[in-house]
């Protein structure tokens, strides 16, 4: 009897490479379609076992809910699978290079997550007796110290919840300082290249925004600035300037800008979104900055979490420090003291108010401090240097093919290209970005800053290895050459390989569908029933 040699075949089958079966489920192996939880959960199902309720008495008055809430529930394994499947449709810094200029997608160390989950930080209430949380005050004070030393300032308002909230806080301090001096200036100067949050913040506080043009190299034009200040003499509340700016360039004239604004009676607000380029290299306090928010989720790596939570402490100059909002920690011989109300302030403390209930983003403070301690003064400096080195390495790898709007010169932590290299190719910046998705990359920041046409802002951060940068540069070169060869199909329909093809955003805005509703039961007509 001969041996049966027909075991499990281990070589590929004979179907051609191009054959893609149309599957029954719509799934493609690991790439699965997932319904909304309301489409398969039920009102009776729950994935949480609670203690049995015995003999509840009601003291609700006449307020008991009568109607169904309509919330579908999932059993635990269903919930686990649902959200694991959803997660697989997301790009993440843990899965690949995420070169979003100005957003700073860098490695998120898990030590920070572990530290933030220590019960002594995660399971303490903001209003339990202060005497029961001395370690919390110590942590906030320690982080404040690291932030002040690295920025060269002497005060910091910790409570703002995100970068834009920090901007609001800084501008409120500026407004309070003017009011205290008996002034009411109305004009805030904002360069064209600013984040949208800057003009929105100024407008929210009733300021009038006057835009400052950039000069040819992308930085603020001192002559224009002087003229604008002269035009609005005695009415300048301040300037909101991002430095390094959103073109990836350090404002060389920053000290002169600060002097001009100060001489005009205004304050210098610095948008700290790009502070990660200069930590350990220069201190905003030495540049004449009066207020600057620090995006802990950018520079100090607290995770972006799909769009938050952020955290935006604001460092303040001596002139603005008295107006810092409640709450704050006062340091005295007696130790650390939490000041939560106006009644507890001293004469030289004149808080302009309160940004939020409680004390700010404690969970983010722990992560940021863990990050800063891990790096130390030497590591923080090295991280900035590596971020700038990586960005310039990409610049020289691409500058012969892609167009640098401000000519060949070193950039900071991000490099800005415009779309002139795509001229006459039939490929737009958006198409180009979508083709990067098929190559396994998250696109760079596009169409921002507004000062250049078809902007592409690339920020690799210090987290990328040289091999990773080399592959990215090679991929970008291949895409550019492909576009220039006229292979428009690779771009116009991209992405082809992502969980979704290009989505109809215009349609979404025209008739907004913002929540799930039960589908109408299908009308059964006699013909259809047959």
């Amino acid at each position: 009897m001969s041996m049966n040699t027909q075991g499990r075949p281990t070589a590929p089958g004979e179907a051609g490479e191009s054959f893609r079966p149309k599957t029954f489920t719509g799934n493609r192996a690991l790439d699965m379609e997932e319904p909304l939880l309301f489409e398969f959960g039920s009102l009776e199902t729950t994935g949480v076992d609670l203690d049995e309720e015995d003999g509840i008495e009601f003291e609700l008055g006449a307020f008991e809910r009568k109607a169904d809430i309509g919330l579908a529930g999932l059993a635990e394994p269903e919930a686990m699978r649902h959200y694991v499947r959803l997660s697989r449709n997301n790009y993440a810094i843990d899965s690949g290079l995420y070169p979003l200029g100005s957003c700073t997608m860098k490695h998120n160390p898990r030590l920070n997550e572990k530290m933030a989950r220590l019960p002594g930080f995660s399971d303490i209430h903001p209003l339990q007796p202060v005497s029961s949380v001395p370690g919390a005050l110590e942590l906030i004070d320690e982080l404040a110290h690291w932030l002040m030393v690295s920025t060269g300032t002497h005060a910091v308002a910790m409570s703002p919840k995100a970068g834009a909230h920090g901007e609001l806080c800084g501008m409120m301090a500026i407004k309070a300082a003017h009011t205290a001096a008996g002034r009411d200036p109305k004009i805030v100067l904002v360069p064209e290249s600013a984040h949208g949050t800057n003009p929105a913040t100024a407008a929210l506080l009733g300021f009038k925004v006057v835009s400052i043009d950039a000069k040819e190299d992308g930085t603020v034009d001192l002559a224009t600035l002087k003229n604008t200040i002269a035009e609005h003499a005695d009415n300048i509340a301040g300037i909101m300037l991002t430095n390094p700016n959103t073109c990836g360039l350090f404002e060389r004239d920053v000290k002169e800008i600060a002097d001009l604004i100060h001489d005009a009676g205004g304050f210098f607000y610095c948008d700290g979104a790009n502070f990660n380029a200069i930590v350990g290299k220069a201190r905003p306090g030495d540049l004449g900055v009066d207020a600057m928010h620090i995006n802990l989720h950018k520079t100090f790596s607290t995770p972006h979490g799909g769009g938050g939570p952020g955290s935006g402490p604001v460092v303040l100059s001596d002139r603005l420090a008295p107006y810092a909002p409640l709450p704050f920690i006062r340091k005295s011989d007696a130790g650390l003291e939490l000041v939560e109300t106006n009644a507890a302030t001293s004469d030289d403390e004149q808080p302009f108010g309160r940004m939020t209930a409680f004390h700010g983003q404690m969970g983010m403070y722990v992560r940021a401090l863990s990050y800063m301690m891990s790096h130390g003064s030497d590591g923080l400096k090295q991280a900035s240097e590596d971020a700038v080195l990586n960005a310039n390495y990409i610049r020289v790898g691409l500058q012969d093919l892609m167009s640098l709007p401000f000519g060949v010169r070193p950039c900071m932590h991000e490099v800005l290209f415009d779309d002139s290299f795509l001229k006459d190719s039939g490929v737009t910046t958006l198409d180009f970005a979508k083709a990067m998705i098929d190559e396994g990359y998250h696109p760079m920041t596009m169409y921002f800053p507004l000062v250049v046409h078809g902007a592409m802002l690339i920020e690799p951060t210090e987290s990328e290895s040289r091999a990773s940068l080399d592959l990215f540069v090679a991929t970008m070169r291949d895409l550019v050459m492909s576009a220039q060869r006229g292979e428009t199909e690779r771009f116009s329909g991209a992405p082809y390989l992502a969980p979704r093809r290009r989505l109809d955003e215009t349609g979404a805005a025209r008739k907004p569908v913002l929540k799930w509703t039960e589908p109408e039961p299908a009308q059964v007509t006699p013909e259809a029933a047959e």
Partner: protein
Amino acid sequence: MRYLPLSNTDRGDMLARIGVNSIDDLFADIPENVRLEGLLDLPKRASEMQVERKLSAMAEKNTSAGSVPFFVGAGAYKHHVPATVDHLIQRSEFLTSYTPYQPEITQGTLQYLFEFQTQVARLTAMDVANASMYDGSTGTGEAVLMAHRVTKRNKAVLSGGLHPQYREVVEGLSNMSGDRVVSLPADPMGTEDILSQIDDETSCVVVQSPSFYGQLIDLKPIAEKAHQHKALLIAVFTEVVSLGLIEPPGTQGADIVVGEGQSIGNGLNFGGPYVGLFATRQKYVRQMPGRLCGETVDAEGKRGFVLTLSTREQHIRRDKATSNICTNSGLCCLAFTIHMALLGQAGLTKLARINHGNAVRLRKLLSAVPGVEVLNAAYFNEFTLSLPKVAEDVVEQLAERGVLAGLPVSRLEPENKDLANLLVVASTEVNTDEDRAAFAAALKEVLA
């Protein structure tokens, strides 16, 4: 440094490729007189072990809520969060993703935002909800600004039952932007006359239910009066679990509903990060602040989700935007969505009943303590005690006896001496019979 992949050889080679001699050549734009030469005056790098040691030492100095009988609420609540929630939100693909500006590769985030918006709309019985705000207090500030845009008026009337720190957030914003605020005096029992404050100049009335003091408030007459004067009712809540058991603001006539979502999915975290819930009527959607996720189709006709109506937002509209807000509470709202999906209607209702039941048990025990009066007739899981002594002192003495008993109102309202003896007490599903008995016994002792 363990987080930096470049070796010194890499750095040298890369500088050569860039064509500069040293790293400092790349920083040449920084004026020389402000360039740092040495290191910042901070400690040098630390190993994982060193960091853990130092931070754990700080953490251990704090009394965690789970380690004692715990009854502090007042805007943040100690609930049990299923282990699944924290596991799922730490998936790399959720944790380390950015705002979903590239929808083709962020459907995970977008779909849960759509689920979140649906959950919030249903809980509040409103037409639409956004993809979250920073927290309940900043959301309340945004709601007032939104009401001003809708009504083209600028006077807000704030109930005396509104959380004092929420009130301060609204007052701060309004003072700065020149809007008017009428803040009613503290109202522990829900007996204030807010109706007489509403007139033709009123943009909005802001009422919290359950109030800061725990009192449930009938919103219907307030909505009616507000609407007679073409003003909006902004209904606020700080304990979202209450919506599992009480009449939602949407069916009581609220125009904007805003509240704190921390209770579902999120820990106490000493006050943040939390997640602000924000819902409104369909007709006001274009005046809404914050991010919105909407349904659409892709080029092959498959359903997908995108951020939408972004023409309201700062990155498009700049100084004409509805808000300067740029982020939401992404990961916290994921935690909320998962926890709420696990609960479902059945679980949420039961959770709410247990919370209320525990509060009623606690109420009975505490009102039996000589000298203690409970001020609220209708409440959910929180109520206010009037004590025969200064509440702040009582709380400290109870803390010494190992019970974290609640919030003395004077901590937030130090200037109002009438409130000095008031203590706001919360009881959730985490409290046991033993916890309640320990509280009552200790209170009896302290007041004796």
